């Protein structure tokens, strides 16, 4: 017998109040949701802001700002869709899309905000001019030396202090960036768009913080991909996106997480799982499985109890909808 026609043909119709049924389920859900909202509220974890991060970690903040400036940061060398870097290109498809959300980490994250800040604090201007007029080789020398110096940097009297050295304008520039970050004004500089006054796009704000600040924050450790990431809530005890369990589980597979394209691979394999689910009716074997699992006997216990002997399947059934109500 075809799996499509593997159905009983004889059953009774019983009275039903469908409107009452629908209203009942709506009331059940509304009561449960309102009760849960009243009892547990909503899990909102304080976000990481540039102000909070720079205030709490001034040296690490300057190190991150320097990586944005010297091209060593994750976004500076990311690749499409942000720029022509190569560090985070996982597939040819990614390159095909091209640079559609352009980001120049040095200019967009550091130099433009500092240029705006220099209008308020003119002391920034000479250092900025000196940096921008220097050759790229000279900039690179300063940056290499100051990267090493910042590893020994300490925060004192509102600025980061390093051992003496030939760093050009970098100490001034990065301390100015730190001051801007601590002021809370840097977010505005990062999300501004001179062409429009609405502020829908917070891309650069998030990308600025996406490396070390968010990766190393204690509050995100539970949310990391290898730790089953998204299915964990930011506030313990609350449910999160547990429906992402399968792709998150796939992300734990060693050959996925260690591959060159872990994110694309986890999503692609997850899609294959979904495809199997979606095509179950047409997959031989899988489409007959429920019959042999026998759970349906529990679900239809009362029906089977009342009809111990089923009538043999009808010879022909067209569409199977004869009994549709």
């Amino acid at each position, binding site marked *: 017998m075809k799996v499509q026609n593997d159905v009983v043909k004889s059953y009774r119709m019983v009275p039903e109040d469908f409107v009452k049924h629908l209203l009942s389920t709506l009331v059940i859900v509304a009561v449960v949701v309102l009760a849960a909202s009243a009892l547990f509220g909503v899990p909102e974890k304080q*976000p990481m802001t540039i102000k909070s991060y720079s205030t709490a970690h001034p040296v690490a903040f300057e190190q991150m700002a320097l990586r944005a400036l010297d091209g060593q940061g994750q976004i500076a060398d990311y690749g499409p869709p942000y720029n022509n870097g190569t560090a985070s290109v996982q597939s040819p498809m990614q390159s095909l899309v091209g640079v559609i959300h352009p980001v120049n980490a040095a200019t967009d994250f550091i130099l433009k905000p500092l240029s705006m800040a220099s209008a308020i604090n003119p002391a920034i201007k000479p250092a900025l001019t000196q940096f921008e007029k220097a050759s790229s080789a000279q900039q690179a020398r300063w940056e290499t030396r100051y990267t090493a110096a910042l590893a020994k940097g300490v925060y004192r009297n509102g600025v980061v202090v390093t051992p003496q050295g030939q760093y050009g304008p970098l100490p001034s520039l990065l301390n100015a960036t730190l001051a801007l970050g601590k002021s809370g004004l840097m977010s505005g500089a990062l999300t501004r768009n001179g062409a429009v006054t609405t502020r829908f796009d917070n891309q650069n704000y*998030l990308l600025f913080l996406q490396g070390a600040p968010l990766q190393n924050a204690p509050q995100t450790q539970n949310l990391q991909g290898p730790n089953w990431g998204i299915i964990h809530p930011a506030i313990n005890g609350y449910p999160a996106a547990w429906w992402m369990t399968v792709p998150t589980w796939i992300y734990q597979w060693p050959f996925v997480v260690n591959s060159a394209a872990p994110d694309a691979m986890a999503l692609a394999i997850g899609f294959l799982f979904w495809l199997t689910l979606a095509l179950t009716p047409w997959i031989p074997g899988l489409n007959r499985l429920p019959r042999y699992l026998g759970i*349906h006997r529990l679900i239809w216990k009362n029906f089977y109890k009342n009809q111990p002997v089923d009538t043999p399947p009808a010879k022909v059934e067209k569409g199977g909808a004869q009994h549709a109500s």
Partner: protein
Amino acid sequence: MANWTVTSKKMLSEVMSAETWLPTEMPEYAQGFMYMLGSLTASSFVVLVISGVLLAMNGPDTWSYNSAMRFVAATHFWAVQAFFFFMMLHLWRVFFTGAWRGGRGATWLLGAIAFLIAIPTAFTGFLINGDLYSQWNAVQAKDGLNALGMGWVNLTNAGQMFGMHVVVLPLVLTGVIGLHIIRVRTKSVVPPYPTAPKEGEAQQ
């Protein structure tokens, strides 16, 4: 070739009929809690839409400084939990009862598509919330989308995510859920398996 108008007319007559949407009898096997799961999922979707409209009317960040809107945000949060919870139970029920039999494959497929679309619909909602969870997941998930050549979907652009979450994805999801429910109503729910497999039946 069949007359398209006649065919459309016939289909619409069935879909728009009160007989389809307001049945006064049901098959005897389609009773009890197991047959409430689909309606509970749909009811959760209704609560999601109502709470979502309230949030959209007031602005997506009003929960952060207005206690009434924080409560509405909480209802939206718990409604999505209810939605996926009942959807999963519904999915298990329809799987264990082989609900694709008797010409109901498309019903199953539409349900599976609704499940797939529901995932980014919920995800984009998390992204526009503006808390640490949104911040973290925006920057983490972007790499996967970028790698798959979907960089135009910019998870770090709250405006685009707002549009996706409030208009694009819910519209598509509503359409797919609507088609799924139309199929359920017009084809009815699947009848039970015949009681015992007949001799040699599995091989046929």
